């Protein structure tokens, strides 16, 4: 076969993989053939040295796991016959507790079935960890990073690729799902094997930190959750942002989010700086909330025991801040279309853009009767507390 026929055949076999990756593979093999020819081989020999296009395509599709994979051809007269021979029984390699997985494919045109073995689960896990963890931004429609016990940083990528970095890849998987969601998870790892005749077998949860890098201008939905780890988000853009932690702190700094931003913690603190978004929702149980230089259309803030402090913020739509025991110190420089601020025992100090003529104000302070003033046709503004102090001021 000559060089061009080989490359054509390989190109056909690679029809199902992304175009860019197929081009990369074709360039690689075309270079390899040319280098062999330059080294003194004739074209035919150089092409033969590459092996079959089928094997290459399989290797590319299997990516990484391929060299641990054994392929056994099973001759068969008719379809429907599954594994005729089992040269390697699963039990043979299961001595240390690892399992082999098999799959069987029947190719009717060749009247031949292929039995594939993908090595031990452990080898597959290792292969997953080693598999590529950088993705072309245009292939990713969303990012979901969940249930990690380490810290998470979301930063800017130096190039056009979305990158996942960690010093500890045990149990960590990055998978681009069919809908384009890049799913990043860390599973508990079972380590079993035999070393110099001694079997070992144990379970553990790796806790390494993870850095996610997103290129500038790549605005996809981003969702990050941790248990005890802190989360820092410093990537420039996102379509939507969902960040949650149980005991970890959350920091969002200099981020533009096109749609919703949702932040939630149980005991962790929340700090949002220089954030621009459409709808912002923040929920904590005992964590404190600090918003500085945040611009949103609507703002919805709920805490149980945590305090909240807003400075230099802007929100022109509906703004609601509710706390049970926390103090609310709210500074919003824009005129608010609809404001609702409420505590049970916490103090309320609210300063808004505009003045008394812009709002229809209703204040309910403890057992005393509701005070109504301002412009009856103005934007509704309600301040309510059962046992706290109330203070309302205007910037203008």
């Amino acid at each position, binding site marked *: 076969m000559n060089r061009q026929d080989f490359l054509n055949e390989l190109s056909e076999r690679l029809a199902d993989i992304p175009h860019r990756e197929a081009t990369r593979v074709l360039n690689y093999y075309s*270079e390899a053939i040319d280098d062999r020819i330059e*080294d003194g081989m004739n074209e035919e020999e150089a092409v033969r040295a*590459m092996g079959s296009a089928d094997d*290459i395509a399989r290797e590319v599709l299997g*990516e*990484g796991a391929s060299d*641990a994979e054994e392929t056994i051809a099973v001759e068969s007269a008719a379809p429907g016959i599954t594994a005729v021979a089992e040269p390697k029984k699963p039990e043979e390699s299961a001595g240390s507790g690892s399992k082999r997985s098999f799959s069987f494919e029947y190719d009717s045109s060749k009247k031949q079935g292929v039995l594939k073995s993908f090595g031990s689960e452990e080898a597959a896990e290792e292969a997953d960890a*080693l598999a590529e963890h950088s993705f072309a931004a245009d292939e990713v429609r969303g990012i979901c990073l969940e249930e990690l016990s380490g810290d998470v940083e979301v930063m800017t990528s130096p190039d056009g690729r979305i990158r996942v970095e960690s010093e500890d890849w045990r149990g960590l998987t990055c998978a681009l799902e069919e809908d384009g969601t890049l799913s990043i998870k860390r599973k508990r790892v079972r380590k079993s094997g035999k070393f110099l005749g001694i079997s070992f077998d144990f379970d553990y949860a790796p806790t390494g930190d993870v850095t996610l890098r997103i290129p500038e201008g790549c605005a996809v939905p981003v969702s990050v959750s941790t248990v005890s780890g802190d989360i820092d988000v410093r990537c420039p853009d996102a379509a939507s942002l969902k960040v949650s932690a149980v005991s970890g702190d959350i920091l969002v700094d200099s981020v533009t989010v096109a749609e919703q931003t949702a932040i939630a913690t149980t005991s962790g603190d929340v700090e949002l700086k220089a954030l621009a978004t459409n709808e912002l929702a923040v929920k904590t149980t005992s964590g404190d909330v600090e918003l500085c230089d945040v611009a949103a259309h609507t703002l919805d803030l709920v805490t149980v025991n945590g305090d909240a402090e807003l400075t230099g913020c802007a929100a022109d739509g509906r703004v609601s801040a509710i706390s049970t025991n926390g103090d609310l110190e709210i500074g919003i420089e824009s005129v608010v279309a609809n404001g609702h601020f409420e505590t049970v025992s916490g103090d309320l100090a609210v300063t808004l853009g505009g003045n008394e003529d812009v709002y229809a104000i209703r204040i309910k302070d403890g057992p005393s009767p509701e005070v109504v003033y301002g412009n009856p046709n103005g934007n509704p503004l309600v301040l309510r507390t059962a046992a706290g102090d109330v203070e309302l001021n205007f910037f203008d």
Partner: protein
Amino acid sequence: MDAQLRRGILDVCVLRALADGESYGYRIIKDVSPYVSISESTLYPILKRLEAGGLLTARTAEHSGRLRRYYSITEQGRERITAFLDEWAELMRIYGYIRGEAER
């Protein structure tokens, strides 16, 4: 040789082939194959994986009227070689001990 062991060794052999300077696909194969058998189709996923892991970087340059991809090792790649050698020094010590026992 065990598939996993072979994979680990091949990674480090490819990095070693780059340790003395930039190289390209065919030359890496020629440098490594006297020690471990390696083909173009085995090398491709290794290069891809090592690049993704930041152990090597790649660039495309012209060579006699066509394009060739050149690979260079990174600091991280060199660290992988050192880590590999350290591990094996330890393993060889155990090997020596076991041999001593077996010959008795």
